[in-house]
Structures are given as structure tokens and as C-alpha cells.
């Protein structure tokens, strides 16, 4: 104890040693356990790659990246955010995968004037009535993938669509988003149980309804269950599967394999999207992580760190000047792996969306292939409700 006191006294005598320059702090709430563990691990790898490429600095200034697992649990995330704000005095926040967590921690961060750059969820509340200057939905608005998928189904002339989602709020939002993009009436709307294991009953209905295509929003294990059973029932020969990007991303492909072939899915990014930053990112990611192809979660996380880096550079490291930081973030002036984009008034991106299809590549690996653009520049429908 005495030694520590002496050391502290000594440190105080040397001017500028203890308080050389406080590092810029980024609080990252990771999802490494709980329902989004697999997606959270992808995001963590994206964060870490960006941090490594920046040499652990932001805008050339010393930075500290706090990473803690909150297990996809809104209560745990709330506690963590309070700790990040009060004890660690963070300057930026990011990390959660689920919309429920984003909604739980958002208001606290906004009140504490800490910019929250979302690396995944884009809940409609933050796009509409509860929009806030401190929120940046860097990734997408939740409805966008579904609307894009609806447009794909309409453009390809898929008739008598069956659309399917679990019976919970996000499932209903997804199907409504799809219908907005599809415009014509759908053949059947099926709501399944949350966490359903066996889809035999629904598959028999599908066989009976004979749709041209089925749209599924079945996150995580539910989608894996469905697709495996869909293919073993032989339905893939007559019915096409369309899904949002997260149902057909690299993490799902690795878990399901062959049955994924031929699935259409929509996202704002693809690993074979042709721009310099993306090529650099995908190559670096493969090199760093054992030749694994990045998923959209990794790409989004990587973008968030690069967006913060650009804003710190623009403000010359003076992150205490929050209005300047917000103005810099809002410009989205960084090399995004999805190509350039702008923010709408609600700080959600106005950006293109793409159609991808799962195929075997030249090396025989099963992976997504970019087919084309669905929207040239899409803005969410909630922006009108955002009054600033």
C-alpha cells in the first residue's frame, strides 16, 4: 500500500505523464454468448480486423477499444452501457446484434450524448418517431432487406408467393416489409412458432399450395431447420427460396451446406461487390481468419470502426466537441465496403441493395454470388415520421 502511494506521488511529480492524452474510448457491447453468439462472433472479427488495420488508433490518435460480452440480453446490456458511460467515459458506442438490445440501450446513450453507431440492428422506432442525432444506423433499416426481397419476387414474376415468419413482432414487420416491396397480394401468409424445430406440417402445406417461390424470414436455427427439411422433402425442385440476407449469409451456409444452393437473398453488401475497399477488406479478412469468407455482420462491424476513424480524423481528435463529431459522422466520408452512401434526416443510410444467389464458385465452395442491384438508392419508409 505504502509503495503504491509513493509511486503515485512520484508519478504526480512528473508533469504530463499521467495525463499525456486521454485515449479516445470506444465501448463495444459484444454478443458472444446467448441467442446471437454466432453473429456476434462475426461482428467481433470485423471489429478486430479494422482495429488491427488502424494500428489500434483512431484518426491517428491513441484509442482504447473496450469489448465486453453482454450475451444478447437487454438487461445485461443496459448495465454494461451504464458502466461504459459512468466509469469508462466512452466517446462512441457500438456492438449489439439484436434490435431489442439497441432499443434498450439507445435512450441512455442519447441522453449521455454518446454517438451510437449501429453495426447491425436498425429498428423502425429509431428511424421514425424516436429518431435521434446521436444514432447512426450505419448498417440498414430493418425493413430494407425484406422490401428488397419483395421487389425481387415481383421483378422475377414469382406468382402465388407463400411468405413465412415466426409469430412475433419482428416476424410481422418482416412480412409487411416484403408485401410493401411485392405490391401484389401474396398467396399465403404463414406464421410459425418461435423456435420451431419441425416444419413438416408447413412443408406439406407448401407442397399442396404449389407456389412458385417461398419467402422465409426465419432467423438463426429456425431457418437452418426449415431449409434442411425443405430440401429433404424434395421441394427445392419446384419451389424457389427467397430470403433476407441474414438467412442466406456465409454463417448459415457453413452450417447447412449443399441444401442452400439456389437460394436468393438480399442485402446492402456482398463479398464480391466490386470496389477497392471491399476487395481489400475481403482479402484481409480471409487472410486473418483462416480463409473464411466474411458475412454481412463482419462487413458492417468493419465499416463502423472505419466510420469512427474518419470522424475522429475530421475533428482532429477533439471528440469532446460532440456537435462537430456528429457533423463529421453524418457526412459518411469514409471508404465503406459497400461503396459510397449518404444518410437521410433520420441518420439511416440511403443506399443500394443487391440480390445475391447461393452457388458453387470456381473452387467448388458454396458461397453467395452477386446477381445485381434491386434498388439503386433505397430510403426507409419511416423517415417521414422523424421530426427533428
Amino acid at each position, binding site marked *: 500500500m505504502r509503495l503504491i502511494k509513493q509511486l503515485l506521488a512520484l508519478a504526480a511529480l512528473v508533469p504530463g505523464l499521467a495525463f499525456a492524452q486521454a485515449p479516445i474510448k470506444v465501448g463495444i457491447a459484444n454478443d458472444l454468448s446467448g441467442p446471437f*453468439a*454466432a453473429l456476434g462472433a462475426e461482428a467481433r472479427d470485423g471489429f478486430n480486423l479494422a482495429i488491427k488495420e488502424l494500428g489500434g488508433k483512431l484518426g491517428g490518435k491513441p484509442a482504447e477499444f473496450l469489448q465486453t460480452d453482454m450475451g444478447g440480453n437487454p438487461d445485461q446490456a443496459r448495465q454494461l452501457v451504464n458502466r461504459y458511460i459512468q466509469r469508462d467515459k466512452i466517446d462512441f458506442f457500438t456492438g449489439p446484434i439484436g434490435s431489442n438490445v439497441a432499443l434498450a440501450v439507445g435512450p441512455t446513450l442519447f441522453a449521455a450524448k454518446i454517438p451510437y453507431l449501429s453495426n447491425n440492428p436498425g429498428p423502425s422506432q429509431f428511424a421514425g418517431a424516436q429518431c435521434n442525432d446521436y444514432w447512426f444506423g450505419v448498417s440498414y433499416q430493418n425493413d430494407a432487406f425484406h422490401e428488397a426481397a419483395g421487389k425481387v419476387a415481383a421483378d422475377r414474376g414469382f406468382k402465388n408467393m407463400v411468405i413465412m415468419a415466426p*409469430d412475433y413482432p419482428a416476424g410481422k414487420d418482416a412480412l409487411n416489409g416484403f408485401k410493401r416491396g411485392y405490391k401484389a397480394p401474396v398467396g399465403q401468409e404463414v406464421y410459425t*412458432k418461435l423456435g420451431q*424445430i419441425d416444419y*413438416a406440417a*408447413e412443408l406439406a402445406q407448401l407442397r399442396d399450395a404449389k407456389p412458385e417461390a417461398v419467402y422465409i424470414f426465419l432467423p438463426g436455427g429456425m431457418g437452418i431447420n426449415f431449409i*434442411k427439411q425443405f430440401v*429433404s422433402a424434395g421441394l427445392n425442385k419446384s419451389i424457389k427460396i427467397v430470403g433476407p440476407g441474414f438467412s442466406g449469409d456465409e454463417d448459415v451456409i457453413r452450417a447447412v451446406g449443399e441444401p442452400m444452393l439456389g437460394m436468393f437473398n438480399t442485402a446492402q453488401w456482398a463479398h464480391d461487390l466490386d470496389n477497392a475497399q471491399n476487395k481489400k477488406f475481403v482479402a484481409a479478412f480471409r487472410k486473418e481468419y483462416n480463409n473464411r469468407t466474411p458475412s454481412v455482420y463482419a462487413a458492417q462491424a468493419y465499416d463502423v470502426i472505419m466510420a469512427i476513424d474518419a470522424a475522429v480524423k475530421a475533428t482532429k481528435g477533439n471528440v469532446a466537441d460532440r456537435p462537430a463529431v456528429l457533423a463529421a459522422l453524418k457526412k459518411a466520408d469514409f471508404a465503406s465496403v459497400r461503396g459510397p452512401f449518404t444518410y437521410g434526416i433520420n441518420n439511416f443510410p440511403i443506399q443500394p441493395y443487391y440480390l445475391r444467389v447461393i452457388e458453387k464458385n470456381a473452387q467448388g465452395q458454396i458461397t453467395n454470388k452477386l446477381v445485381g442491384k434491386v434498388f439503386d438508392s433505397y430510403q426507409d419508409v419511416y423517415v417521414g415520421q422523424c421530426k427533428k
Partner: protein
Amino acid sequence: MSSTLIAEQLLNGLQFGLMLFLIAAGLTLVFGILDILNVAHGSLYMAGAYVAAQTMQVTQSFVAAVVVAAVVTGLVGLVLELVLIRKLVIRDHLAQVLGTFAVILIANDVIKMIWGPAPMMMSMPPALSGPVQLTPDLMYPAYRLLIIAVGLAAALGLYLFVTRTRAGVLVRAGASNRQMATLMGVRVPLLFLGVFVLGAMLAALAGALLGPVTAIQTGMGEQILILVLVCIVIGGIGSMRGAFVGALLVGFVDTAGRAFLPSLLKLFFSPAVASSVGPTLAALSIYILMAVVLVFRPSGLFPARG
């Protein structure tokens, strides 16, 4: 609604019921003999699925995957019984549930340490990966027929084991009156160990069989355990026959609820009401079934102890 569709849904119900039975059999056996509610039974199912997937990736042989999964999970069950279950047998039910619940948490993290958080892949044996033509109109996935066949074989095997073998006599004696069985000279610790390992192996068999058609991921055990608990509560906790009947009832009611309820409701209500109430009611159907059974038969359809 065609008769083919109804036939197919009946097959689906049978298949789902038999799949639940494979897990329920082990759970009810352990409860019947050891008088311990092992909520970590789902974790043994998960372990079976993971070991099977790993073996399948290495050997490309489905039979090897099932056998290795059963053996390895049986060994895990052996260790679990010797280290923990044996000590919990003399405690009350609350301690047992807490103790085995801890096993769930540990199991999920151990799996994550070994295989990572991402779901694992287990491909289907190529010969069974497509559908087969049962009647001119009815196509049915070959793999689901395999599940039906194995489920029925396991049910028959367990029936013969319990009614026709000496070990089965001991199991029945232990289930109906443990103290009396002890007094009559049954070597209880050995019997407990054997029963627990058998239960673990049955769970692993279910996990390995379901691997190719479900997501192999942490937490898969808890998801299915809830359904399995409903089966054994309906059937009467501890009764093998009860588990069989309960699992089939749950399989049929759940499938019928999902397949027919929404369209049935459309006949009586507006489409808007039917489409919002239908899925909710279908999801509740098995719990309604359980409540109704418990009102009339509080200890289930086939109570193990009179």
C-alpha cells in the same frame, strides 16, 4: 383439403411424436428409477448431435456417426452419474433441478469452447436425402421414414427390454417401489448407473438422427426439452408406456394444430381474425392438451406409481 394432404400430415405427426419419444424415453426412465428430474437431459441430446456431426465430417459415414455419438454420450452420462447425479439422488427435487440446471449452463459453454458459437453442419446420408413416392400422389422424405422406423424400433426394443428381460424386471421394480426393491436385494447403485447411461444413449441417438434435419447449435437441448417435458407429464412421469402415448399425442396434436387450425378458423371467422388467432392457438394446442389431461388425470395417463 385432399386426403393425400391429411395422410401426409398424419405421417408428419407420427414422425414428430416418435422423435420426441426417443428423448422422452430416456428422461422418463431416469425419473422413474432414480426419482430425479434431470433437466440436463436436453444437453445430452445436444452432445449426441455435436459428436455425430463431428464424426460424420471425419468419417463420412452416417452409421459410424450414430454409433460414436451413442457411445461417447453414454460415457459422458457415466461420468455425470458418478460425479453429480449420484449425489443428487438423496436431495430434494429443488436441489436436483438446480444441480442439473447448472449442467445445462456448463454443457453449453463447453460445447462453445470445443466447436465455437456458430451452428455446426451435418450432411444427410446421400441415399436418404430425397423424397420417396409412397402412393402416386404422396411423396415423403426418405429420411423422415428412417426416423419413423428407428423410433418404432426403439419403442419395441424398450418394450421388450422392460417386459421380457431380467434387467427390465429390476427397472420395473425400481420404478414402482424403490425401497422395496432395495430390500429385496437389487443392487441399486449399479441399476441407477445403467439406467442413466441408457437414457443418455437414447438422447444421443435422437440427437444424431435429428442432426441432419435440424440446426446443431448450443441451446438446442433446452428448446426440445420443454416439448419433451410436456410429453412425459401427459403420459405420467416415470412411465415408459406413458412417454410413448404422450409423445405421439403431442406429435399429432401439434402437427394438426399447425396444419389445420388456421384454415379451420377461416371457416368461422374473418380472415384477419383467423390469421392472427390461428398461429397463436396452434402454438398453444399442446399446452391446452396437457391442461385438459391434468384436469382429468392429475398424475398423467399412465401413472408410474399407484
